[in-house]
């Protein structure tokens, strides 16, 4: 019983960390139709910034997160302007190649400047200790990640379904030319959505660093996991991404607890089964 609980809590926290990182990717793919394999690179960049701010400059955790998000978005602007914009609407293969190229560059450069070692982001006192939630004590950081995940999910849902920006976004996605004709500045919508996606990747990269440690190969190591989450959940679907993260987080965590010697075997077997049964993901839109 205790094991099941532990697995459940770990899986949930891990799933939520995945969710925060992946939902940005899901939005870029579902809404902007860009297969961005470099998504993880942004999460990693944020991790490096946060680590530098918190560890080397001694700034607070919250400030480090904030700086990481802002810094990553600023870094992403020229990339969006000069590289990503060239592949909107291109074939999948082109997008894959370009974004793998970006990923490789980021990995190479990061390693050149920061070396191959793991970078930690020190947690503040309040998050480092366990919390008693009645039936069990849980690391406060896990609770924090879960809360962040739920807040992000709710916030995004509100943004897309209930705000003026959300309406413009959905209109642009449905029919960019028509939205343009109706006065929606689609370029701006794209740029803002891209920034939101990157910001979420950055946020997830920092708060999820306990689960997905920050190192130069981060972007490549977890590229597959992120892609898998999006295609299992269905690109562009928030609910789908939540469910995919929870299911895959559960499969992964359970596998690691119960059959560590099998590594990721069950994770990938589950992925193949799910994708074969739901080729568009749990909540993918029919094309």
């Amino acid at each position, binding site marked *: 019983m205790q094991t099941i609980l532990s697995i459940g809590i770990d899986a949930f926290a891990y799933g939520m960390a995945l969710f925060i990182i992946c939902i940005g990717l899901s939005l870029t793919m579902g809404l902007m139709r860009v297969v961005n394999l470099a998504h993880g690179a942004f999460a990693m960049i944020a991790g490096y910034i946060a680590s530098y701010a918190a560890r080397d400059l001694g700034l607070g955790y919250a400030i480090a997160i904030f700086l990481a998000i802002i810094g990553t978005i600023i870094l992403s602007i020229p990339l969006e302007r000069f*590289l990503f914009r060239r*592949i909107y609407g291109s074939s999948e293969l082109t997008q894959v190649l370009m974004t793998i190229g970006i990923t490789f560059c980021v990995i190479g450069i990061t390693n050149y400047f920061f070396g191959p070692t793991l970078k930690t982001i020190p947690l503040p006192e309040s998050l480092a200790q366990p919390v008693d939630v009645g039936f069990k004590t849980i690391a406060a950081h896990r609770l924090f990640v879960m809360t962040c995940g739920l807040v992000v999910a709710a916030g995004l849902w509100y943004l897309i379904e209930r705000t003026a920006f959300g309406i413009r976004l959905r209109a642009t996605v449905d029919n960019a030319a028509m939205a343009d004709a109706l006065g929606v500045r689609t370029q701006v919508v794209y740029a803002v959505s891209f920034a939101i996606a990157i910001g979420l990747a950055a946020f997830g990269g920092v708060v999820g660093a306990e689960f997905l440690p920050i190192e130069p190969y981060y972007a490549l190591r977890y590229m597959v996991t992120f892609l898998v989450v999006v295609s299992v959940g269905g690109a562009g679907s928030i609910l789908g991404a939540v469910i995919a993260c929870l299911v895959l987080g559960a499969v992964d965590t359970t596998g690691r607890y119960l059959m560590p010697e099998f590594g990721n075997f069950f994770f990938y077997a589950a992925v193949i089964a799910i994708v074969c049964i739901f080729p568009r993901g749990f909540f993918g839109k029919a094309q």
Partner: protein
Amino acid sequence: MPTMAQTEKLAAAPIPGSRAVRDVVGVILIIAAGLAGFWLFPDNLALLTRVIAVALLVLSIDLVVGYCGVATLGQAALFGAGAYAAGIACVNGVTEPLTLILIGAVAGAVAGLLMGTIMLRAHGLAQLVLSIAIVQLFHEAANKASAYTGGSDGLAGLMVGPLFGVFEFDLWGQTAYLFGLALLVVIFIVLKFVVSSPFGMLCRGIKEDPIRIGAMGAFVFPVLLKMFVISGAVAGIGGALAAISTQVVGLDSLSFELSANALVMLVLGGLGSLYGALVGTVIFMGFEHVVSAINPFHWMTMVGALLIAVVLAAPGGLSGLADRVLPSRQRNRGGRA
């Protein structure tokens, strides 16, 4: 344009002839380049043999991606299947090199059949993800089945018998290299026939518009599956060659990274061109050898920059560039050259 008196008659096609001449010249060039490598870099024959093995992998990707338009990041699964099959057979007493190559081809083909059956169920992103998941699954399985595969230590100590019972695989890798070169040339010629057969044309059609092919009354799935099997056999031969020449099989032969790198080589050389696949492999691995000796991370940065540059500036890869620069070499199957 020849509008002359031939309004109702099609001139006897001059195409096959000129095409054949071009291909013969191409094959001779490949052999010449291969032999030149043999004389010029006698100390690097192991690397050159590795280049040939990977070139086979890249050719196999070209069949699927370049000729059929199915994007895959998991082709190393087929390469690794061939490598492990040959390796395991060798450890268990099958030491005749041609038999081992055959075993690799069969294993690759079977893996290709499996991979195609799974991947062709999906489209687009899901298909790409399936390809990655399959190679990762193979990787994990090989890691787990360490009793047969040696797990993360790799399968070492393959003792391959002499080729045709005469030529020992020597320390300098001369036999291995020449054997590999011969394999490559034979496979290249076979693939030339495959891609210019009716089947090859059908694949090109599917790549451009599967609905049109359906409206012509042809089923798409079996054709693509067939190509997956052929491509698996080619990749499997590449894997078996790698196993025979290095006498070890490592988990890296089943990796996502190898798949991605091989795809990069293909794109660099030019999708949908068999020559492009070879050129891309040679250039990529040559540079890799030089640059990564200095610093492996510079190499990553360079590959990344190169990929971006190819996408932005030369979507057809090097062979595409060559086509643009040298119109006489136009692969334009229209003939009228």
